[in-house]
Structure formats: C-alpha cells, structure tokens
C-alpha cells in the first residue's frame, strides 16, 4: 500500500511537472508575434525552390510558403527572416529553436517524425525519382526502359530505387554512376547512357543546363515517393495546426477558384465555402489564434497553390515543371486538402 501511494505520488508529480513545463514554454505563435518576424529555414540556393538574388531578396516555391504563413499571421508577407540551411543542419536548427518553421525541400519520412521530434505539416510538393532521355519519341513510359543504360549520381538513393523498380517490372539495365551531376550530364549528352535518373524536380532543373534543353524528354513516371513539405517541432500542436492549415488553405483556394487577382470577388461571394474561406462566416481564424482573414490574406499576398507553383517552378518559370502529381485531386493529380469547415 505505501509503495502504491509512493508510485502514485511520483506519477502525479511527473504529470504536474509536465503540465508546468507546457505552460511555461511560450507558444511558438506568441514568440513569433512578439518578435514581429517568422524565422523560416530555407535551402541555400535551389533554383525555383529557394533562390536569393544579388540584392539579397529571397524567392521560390519554399520561400513563398514562408511568406504565406507570415501573411496569415501578420498581414505582411515580408515579415520573414530567412535562415539558409544545408541538409545536415536543417533538422537540428529546427529542434534547437533557431527557426520556427523549416520550408526546405525536405522529404517526409517515418524516421524524421518518429526519431527527431518533428512533424511534417503537409505535403506541398510530391516529388519522386524520374527519368530524362534525350529525344527518343518512341519512349513514353519507364516500363519501356528494358535493357537501357542509365546514368545516376553515385551514393544517392537513386541507385536503390532503380534496382527495386527494374526488378519489380522484370527489366534489366546497365548502371553508370558518376561522382557529380555535371559528369552525369556529360555522359548523357555524349551518349554513354540512354537516360538520367534522379528526383524529378532535379531533372527539370538540370534540363536547363543541357546544351539543347528541348532535345530532352522527362518521362511522366515517378518510381519513388519523395513527399516534400514544411516541418515544425512536435511540441506545439497549435503552431503545427497553423502551418498545416496555411498549406491546406493555399490548396483549397485553388479548388475554390480564389486567387490573388479576384480577392474582392471572393469577399463578395455568397457561396458558403468561399465565405468560410474569407472569414465572412465561421470565425475559423480565431480558432487558430489568428484573425478571420488569415486565409484570404495569404492568398492575396502570395497567391493560391497554382499561382505559387506556376510562378516559381511551373509554366511561368525556367524549370517549367508540369503539375503532374501536384495537380488537384479533381484535375488528374493527388493534391488533396481537407475542407475548411
């Protein structure tokens, strides 16, 4: 009996401590508001995703997500401090509180959530390994690559994915692995291999470096899952929800037909889902600790998902990546956001 009491006391004490700790840690939203700026971890320079120009101005698909979160919180997309991070330091920086949000082409994997104390808020870009061939119009599918010679960069997961894919589809191939991407491109252009394989976003970026970009085709197939999205610490669910629902709001805006150029029309809309989005109905922003114009503000300042995509990496950019998997679920892709209601 005394032992049980002692154990109970211990448990209660631990629970109380945990509660106190939670109460003591200021919420990320409060910290961000007090600071007057969102600390956003981004890439160190990846064309279309996070770019810094000569004047120090950041732009890109991942950068625009930071701007959208800032617009939702502050009504000012420029209240962001960008912290460029390399692949090795990005998660530590988030964990150590050096950034509020990581928006840097990071793949959502089991291990990163289960072991690192981090949460992926959403998938903003479905990437995956693909194939680029110099114009061979007869190739329309990766399933037609039997006996192909394939160039990859050494030491990447690309090699393993290739082995799995070809084995699963009863095909054989010859592998040519090079240390650098530049060598891979040279091999492809020199005819040493039929196709180059890496993540599809990388293929589109490298296509621009070919001597004849138009001579290259990128197959629509994706043979691996690389879901990229914003990441937050796992200790603040309210903040996690803000980041997650900003991502969903951008996608829902596209689906509802709300874009930066028709904000006034959206504000005047009588459609219930548009009214919830603009804050005319439902007080959804308040439930996130924001005001009710949070979602429409993000779209007004940064654009909806389609605008962000096309401007940075899609048809309005040098990369010219087709929407593909990143098209809305209702238009041929798998982009799907839960409803705002």
């Amino acid at each position, binding site marked *: 009996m005394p032992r049980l009491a002692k154990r109970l006391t211990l448990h209660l004490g631990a629970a109380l401590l945990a509660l106190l700790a939670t109460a003591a840690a200021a919420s990320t939203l409060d910290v961000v508001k007090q600071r007057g700026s969102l600390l956003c971890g981004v890439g160190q320079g990846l064309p279309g995703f996070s770019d810094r120009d000569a004047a120090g101005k950041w732009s890109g698909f991942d950068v625009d997500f930071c701007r959208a979160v800032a617009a939702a919180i502050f009504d000012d997309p420029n209240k962001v401090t960008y912290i460029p991070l390399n692949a090795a330091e990005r998660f530590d920086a988030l964990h150590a509180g050096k950034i509020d949000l990581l928006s840097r082409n990071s793949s959502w994997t089991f291990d990163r959530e289960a072991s690192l104390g981090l949460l992926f808020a959403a998938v903003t870009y479905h990437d995956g390994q693909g194939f680029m061939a110099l114009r061979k119009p007869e190739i329309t599918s990766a399933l037609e690559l039997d006996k192909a010679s394939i160039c990859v960069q050494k030491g990447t997961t690309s090699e393993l994915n290739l082995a799995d894919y070809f084995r699963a589809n009863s095909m054989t191939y010859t592998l040519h692995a090079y240390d650098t991407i530049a060598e891979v491109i040279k091999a492809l252009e020199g005819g040493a291999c039929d196709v180059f394989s890496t993540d599809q976003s990388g293929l589109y970026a490298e296509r621009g470096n070919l001597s004849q970009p138009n001579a290259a085709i990128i197959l629509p197939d994706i043979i691996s899952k690389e879901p990229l999205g914003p990441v937050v610490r796992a200790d603040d669910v309210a903040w996690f929800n803000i980041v997650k629902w900003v991502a969903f709001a951008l996608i829902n805006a596209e689906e509802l037909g709300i874009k930066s150029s028709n904000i006034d*029309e959206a504000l005047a*809309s009588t459609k219930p889902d548009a009214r919830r989005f603009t804050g005319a109905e439902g007080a959804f922003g308040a439930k996130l600790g924001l005001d009710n114009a949070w979602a429409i503000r993000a779209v007004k300042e940064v654009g909806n998902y389609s605008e962000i995509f096309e401007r940075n990496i899609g*048809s309005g950019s040098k990369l010219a990546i087709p929407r*593909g998997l990143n098209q809305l679920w209702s*238009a041929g892709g798998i982009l799907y956001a839960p409803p705002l209601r």
Partner: protein
Amino acid sequence: MLASFTRFLPQSRPALIALAAILWCAGSAPAGAQAAPESAMRETLAIGEEPGRVSTDEVVIDDGPYKRQLVFFRTNEAPGTFIIQTSEHFLYVVLGNNRALRYGIGVGRQGFQWSGLVKIVKMAEWPDWTPPPEMIQRQPYLPRFMAGGPGNPLGARAMYLGGTVYRIHGTNQPETIGENISSGCFRLANGDVVDLYSHASVGTKVIIRQAPTL
C-alpha cells in the same frame, strides 16, 4: 493580349473587330443557340476571323505548355475519353495507366459555360464554312460559303459535340491557342487537331470542365 493581336486585325475592315467568334462555331447554329449577351461580346471579341489566311495541317504548337505532350493524369474515366479543362486551356485524351495526351487549346471567354458530358456526333475533314445569316448581316463582306481548305477558319478537322452548337476544330490562327478568344468552341492548331482526330470516333465521350465560380 489585345495589343499583341492587333497586327492580325485587317486594317481596312474595322467592323471585324467588333463581331466574331460565336459564329466560328455556329456554322449551322439552330435558333436559340447559347449566345453571349451583346455587351459581353463587344468586350471579348477582339479578333476577327481571317478567311483566306493559310494554315496547313502541318502547323503544330511545338514549344511550351501548349505543345502536344504525354502527361501524368489520374482519372476514373475510360481510355479514349476526351477531358477539356477550359480554365487550363488543355484537352486531355485519356490513355490509361495514369497517362493522357495533352493538347493546348483556345477556348471561349463567354458562351460555353456549360460543363458535363457530351459525345462526338459527327466528324469532318477540312470542313466547309457557311457563315449563318446573322453573321452575314453583321459582316456582309464575309463569304456566303467557303469550301474547306487551308484558308478556312474552321481548320483541318472538326468534331461536333452532340446536342450543342459547339465543336472541337482546327484554326488558321494558331497563335490564339492558350487564349480565351472564341465564344465557345475549342480550337487547336491544324496539325494538332489532325492528331486529335485520329483518337476520336463518333461516340467518343467528351467531358467539359469549367473553372470554379465564386
């Protein structure tokens, strides 16, 4: 957009500027065809048809997003179905295995606001053009009849969409692909419409999707 096309406007015929595109599509328009309100027409019909301007069946869009290309496309629709996403200016031919052939199209800004399912009921190569009486009245200089051929505004092929006055057709103005120009029809460059025609047959399902409205 308007500015960039002024060079195509016939200088000596200013009346052409005002009236146009629904008549592209309405060669044999039944009474009560869905016409856009006159005010809307004045605003949108910035480019006149140019009968006689030659565009052969070899003209294709060969660069950019409107180039004919194989794309990733998930759908529950059967292979062979045409899906038109008007706001994207794309027409997809469903191929199965998460694939579609995608063509760039020109669409109407006003007029075809209907979405849903239609079927191809008739197909024609190098269709003749018979401007309807309303059009002759407004543009008396237009020919009463124009035999099919490279100078015909309807282009190399036409696929008639059942139950409507609309068609998927070619054009002798390939620079209008990707624009909201006609008042309802879906137009492709002649080389692309010839390719699309080879995927079509009488009875092909055509699904038309519009941008969401606020």
